[in-house]
């Protein structure tokens, strides 16, 4: 297993669709994958855990093309890119000023 129970990953993917306001549904399948279907055009994305691959622990299949992903964060990035044409990732910037706490 990739380590993450598929139900937990499925819940994250479903919550992500809502957070990104991408119309669609995500469901866990009997064979242990997650399938997303976009509402407006039935475009599908399939997410499979890759239990035997210690480096690429997930496979994201978009339009029949499989793309490996190293982590759930990478999975989310690929799913968002596939379903949300307007998505432009924001890179974290780390403050140069020290955080001084109370």
């Amino acid at each position, binding site marked *: 297993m990739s380590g993450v129970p598929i139900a937990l990953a499925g819940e994250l993917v479903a919550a992500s669709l809502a957070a990104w306001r991408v119309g669609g549904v995500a469901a866990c399948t009997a064979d242990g994958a997650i399938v997303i279907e976009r509402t407006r055009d039935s475009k599908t994305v399939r997410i499979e855990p890759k239990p035997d691959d210690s480096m690429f622990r997930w496979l994201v299949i978009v339009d029949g093309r499989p793309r490996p992903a190293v982590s759930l*964060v990478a999975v989310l990035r690929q799913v968002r890119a596939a379903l949300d044409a307007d998505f432009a990732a924001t890179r974290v910037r780390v403050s140069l000023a020290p955080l001084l706490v109370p």
Partner: protein
Amino acid sequence: MTSAHAIPVSVLTGFLGSGKTTLLGHLLRQPELSRAAVIINEFGEIGLDHELIATSEDSVIALTTGCLCCKVRSDLTQTLHDLLRRRDAGALAFDRVVIETSGLADPAPILHALMTDVALAERVTLGSVVTTVDAVAGEATLDREAVSRKQAAVADRIVLTKLDLAGGEAAALRQRIAALNSAAPMLHAVRGRIAAADLFAAALSEPRPDAGPQIDAWLGDAAAHSHAHHDAELISYAIVRAGPIQAVALTLFLEALAEHCGADLLRLKGIVNIAESPQRPAVIHGVQHVFHAPAWLERWPSAERTSRMVFITRRIPQRWVEALLDAIGAEVACVSKKDSSW
């Protein structure tokens, strides 16, 4: 990079006419701010606010070239650099800076400028964000002006003004503000009068091992409750986790938050129980996609060992944030376990 002598820069914001300048005038008469340099941003052809501040003229600078949030990187940072140069030359003595924004300013770019300017970072640190809200017109302003909601949402302290004119305790307004920002204590000023210590105690000042009450004040009441407070657009909530969080999980979590919803993450602050550092919790703080590196307390400030993170967001669902943290935590835990078994 040391924080020992960093000069706190506090931001005083609030919508037009909400009493910022009156408040500042009274604050500057108090000993806590007797050595403060003040930057006043006025939006309009003729600046008046700085004329209304009774203090040493050298330590008050008016920026009248436009709204601070729009020209922040050039004007504000340049002004701060100039102030520091004059201080270094002995021409000016101050140990704190207060920026009064224009009433139309979005405070987030101002906070970003303070957090990310390379040269400033060695000299200054972000202090309290104080937001004034007019008890008479505040509700209507919050309804009408998106920037006023953002000003309230990012505050460490909210100061209700003109309560004497409102004729009551402004209960509805208080509820409205709490929905925007349940983490910020609400205080009130009578004709601008309020104790400076009440506003600037929330400043991110020197780390202290006995910082329990200060940490709690900084996080606010919201940290104790995980339920959400809703405005039509802005949501504030706290996420509490009893178990420790692995450092890399926290990093990935913050990265994913910023990557997907950075613009809508108005403010995040928290104290986190890091698995690799059980005795020294991390304090985190971010404004949109800009995060401070965590600060590490010498020890836990109280017997409480839970991780508490307060979120003020524009429509980022709490459910997603929780699912993200939990799933990333589970994945990192599994990978760590696998690594250790090799």
